[in-house]
């Protein structure tokens, strides 16, 4: 048996593709991670209030999501409800994070694949080529990245590993001036996004996406707030095509999925677990009210071959930035945003464990903490988006690699092309290797 290993390019973190070849046939392709850091181990014994300061360091792209999921788990333990102002500000910070994460992923990591797959440009293999491919696109992308940074800086204290997020609320009450600055930024974001979305439609909507990116019969897992698009709160939902949606409360998650602390990966307690997907495609499929009228118009450019294809996630990511910029402008107009409320004090622990769940840019993120008598962490389980997607990624790349290798016998082509499928999922390896 021959084992071929290839390091993944243009992904966040250290990932490898391991290809097993037996009797001139590919038997298995796995997307694997080299480095595990052990956050679940060294967080044990830490004071609850200390944890939201440590967990953002799991990931430099999903820092706000990690901190907010952590704060929510601790608020669950103390049984406190945060103020409406804090809830709204957290949502704005999540949007700042999402805009940065989605725009960097789209531009630097997946756009070169799209241009290559659809034979538009083969010359965008370096970042330098890419920034010169379409200067107007580059400037619109950089406008978005700058907006994400500024919003996080303004309401979070800095652009990564935010300072203002604490259990009980948020240390910040925005001035009228800052509200007006933020509003202008989101209005500019909408202008840049309209340009980018129209460019995407112009480049790709009239083409058919390749079959290797077609999704199997997916099981969508994500947070849904009465079927409205909202990544901060809601119930967990499982939806399979042609079946009724199952909704459940976060405290019942262990009936559907779980993990052993020492083992890597998530176990699913239902059939067809290789078809589970979290992230943008899930949010698009489980929400009925998916944004504004403009979004509906944009969606009409793409029909079935696209909507059933993993590459469609790229378009959905652009739309999510649009929806959230639009929602953020509404939040900035909400009078509750200026009603300053004291941060809830954390008096006595009400439960021995607490769960915080949100939708991070790449999908469902769940923190489950167990606490001891000294308000210190006794046990912890972290479920992150990329971990949920791994069985599906491995299934798709194995199936594709088998066919491609049988047809061409070219292992280098396999190494190269399976990476496109992996990148279409926008994996966050730092998160997955907490």
């Amino acid at each position, binding site marked *: 048996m021959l084992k071929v290993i290839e390091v993944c*390019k*243009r992904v*966040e*973190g*250290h990932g490898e593709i391991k290809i097993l070849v037996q009797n001139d046939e590919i038997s298995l392709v796995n997307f694997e991670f*080299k*480095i595990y*850091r*052990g956050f679940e*181990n*060294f967080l044990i*014994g*830490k*004071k609850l*209030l*200390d944890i939201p*300061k*440590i967990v953002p*360091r*799991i*990931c*430099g*792209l999903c*820092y706000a999501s990690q901190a907010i999921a952590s704060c929510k788990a601790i608020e669950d333990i103390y049984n406190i409800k945060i103020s409406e102002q804090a809830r709204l500000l957290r949502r704005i910070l999540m949007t700042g994070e999402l805009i*940065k994460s989605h725009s*960097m992923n789209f531009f*630097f*990591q997946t756009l*070169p694949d799209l241009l290559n797959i659809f034979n538009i440009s083969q010359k965008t*293999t*370096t*970042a*330098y080529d*890419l*920034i010169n491919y379409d200067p107007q696109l*580059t400037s619109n992308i*950089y406008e978005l*990245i*700058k907006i*994400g*940074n500024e919003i996080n*800086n303004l309401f979070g*204290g*800095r*652009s*990564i*590993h935010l*300072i*203002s997020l*604490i*259990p*009980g609320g948020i*240390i*910040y009450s925005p001035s009228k001036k800052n509200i007006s600055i933020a509003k202008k930024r989101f209005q500019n974001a909408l202008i840049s996004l309209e340009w980018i979305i129209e460019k995407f439609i112009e480049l790709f909507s009239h083409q058919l996406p390749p079959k290797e990116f077609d999704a199997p019969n997916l099981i969508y897992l994500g947070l849904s707030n009465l079927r409205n698009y909202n990544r901060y709160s809601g119930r967990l939902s499982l939806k399979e095509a042609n079946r009724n949606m199952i909704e459940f409360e976060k405290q019942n998650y262990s009936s559907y999925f779980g993990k052993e602390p020492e083992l890597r990966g998530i176990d699913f307690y239902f059939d067809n677990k290789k078809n589970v997907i979290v992230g943008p495609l899930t949010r698009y499929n489980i929400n009925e009210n998916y944004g504004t009228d403009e979004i509906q118009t944009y969606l009409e450019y793409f029909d079935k071959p696209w909507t059933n294809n993993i590459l469609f996630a790229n378009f959905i990511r652009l739309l999510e930035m649009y929806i959230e910029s639009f929602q953020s402008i509404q939040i900035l107009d909400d009078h509750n945003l200026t009603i300053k409320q*004291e*941060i*809830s*004090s*954390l008096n006595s622990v009400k439960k021995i464990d607490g769960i915080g769940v949100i939708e991070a840019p790449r999908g469902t993120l769940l923190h489950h903490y167990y606490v001891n008598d000294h308000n210190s962490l006794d046990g912890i389980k972290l479920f992150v988006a990329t971990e949920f997607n791994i069985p599906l990624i491995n299934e798709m790349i194995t199936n594709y690699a088998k066919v491609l290798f049988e047809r061409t016998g070219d292992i280098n082509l396999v190494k190269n092309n399976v990476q496109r499928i992996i990148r279409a999922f926008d994996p966050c390896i*730092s998160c997955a290797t907490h």
Partner: protein
Amino acid sequence: MKRKFVIISLTSCSGCISSLISLDIFPQFLERTKVIYFQFISDVKDIEDCDICLVEGCVSEEDQISILRKIRKQAKKIYALGTCACFGGILSLSDIKIAEPISRYIEIDGIIPGCPPPMKLFGNCLIRLVENKEIELSEKNMCGSCPLRGNMEINSNVNISKITPNPEEIKLDEENSECFLAKGILCLGPITRDGCEHKCIKMGLPCEGCIGTVSKDFTSNLVNYLSLINLSQELKNYTGIFYRFSKPKLEG
């Protein structure tokens, strides 16, 4: 002649390189230099000789040592990017994994510290590297330019019993004038390098030391500091406060 850059990641959260990409000047940086290896955003597979290598992340795995030794031969200058590469970083909290600064294995030519490096400091450092100049960092601690109006107050009568104020006690800097140490809250400002614009302190939280120490000899600095303050028994027993971003090594 454009300077050739290589950017590599060891064990990290990718926050430093995502900060790099998200700098306003990053597109100009790509125009003015030749980035020949940067796995996060490029397909190039092999590392070639370069003028400058930026290394993000700490050393936590055996094979990273040989990567570093190889790149030391290929790069004219190497800079540690971010607190993990400079001092070990957040994995210093782990008892199982090692988290070593890259300077433990190779000679380096400078550091760009911070978790992540503050945007202004980062942008300035990058411009200096592009212009073939040395990086300049403050050699002062946080206290001299602290926005809290009171003086730094180390008073052994005050029992330091908290690492963070209770949520309801947190006040933004305009309503918060007293040194944290005077209020019994541990602040690492006295042993931390100036350069982050006091972002946590402006938000009403004490310094955690994420940009690292101002002195090369962190251990003796820390011992001095601990001898001056009256730390509560509970905090003495609580692990991972002082070495959250850089574990001191007694063997130097």
